[in-house]
């Protein structure tokens, strides 16, 4: 689990946001509507977003701004979705990506 910042010395209190639920690898989790999927996963302790095609090594967030594409996952059935810049929505189904597919 990674702690969210509730109060920041310069930015002040984090604005209240709408809590929603999503499915990650078959289980239900909570996150905030509109935040990047990657942030919601991180808050729930998820570090590994995918396993690579060739050497099957774990990958997660690296650049966090949609450039490096290391954080891609399967979102609502669609692979290669950059989770660091894709907003979380109620009921989203997020799956770990193996190569370019969900695990058989």
């Amino acid at each position, binding site marked *: 689990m990674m702690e969210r910042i509730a109060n920041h010395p310069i930015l002040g209190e984090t604005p209240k946001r709408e809590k929603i639920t999503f499915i990650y690898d078959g289980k239900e989790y909570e996150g905030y509507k509109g935040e990047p999927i990657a942030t919601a996963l991180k808050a729930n302790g998820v570090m590994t977003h995918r396993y690579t095609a*060739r050497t099957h090594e774990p990958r997660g967030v690296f*650049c966090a701004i949609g*450039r*490096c*594409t*290391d954080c891609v996952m399967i979102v609502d059935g669609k692979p290669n979705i950059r989770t660091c810049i894709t907003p979380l929505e109620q009921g989203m189904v997020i799956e770990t990506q193996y190569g370019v597919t969900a695990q058989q």
Partner: protein
Amino acid sequence: MFDIQEKLKEIGPYIEEADDDLLVCRCEEVTKGEIRRALHQGIFTIEEMRRYLRSGMGLCQGQTCGKLVKGIIAKELHVSPVDVYPASSRAPMRPTEMRILAEDGGVCHE
């Protein structure tokens, strides 16, 4: 830019290095050793390397490894990185689904 045969003679044979299995291109999972071996086969430019090994051809389009690949080529060829010819730039500059490209109807922003 180089006489390939002359350059191959100059750089000598490929000799394995301890960190040859280190990944350079994260997207296409290309290692330093693969790039070094390709250099000793006469692949001297980033452009050729991209086609030959797919380094820098993945989703990020070389955003992360571009400079690293350039550094390896320069070191192996005994030249300065500024003398390694850059890869060409072409659209689409960011990963774009084929469907979106295909449906390009030329609709304008209001």
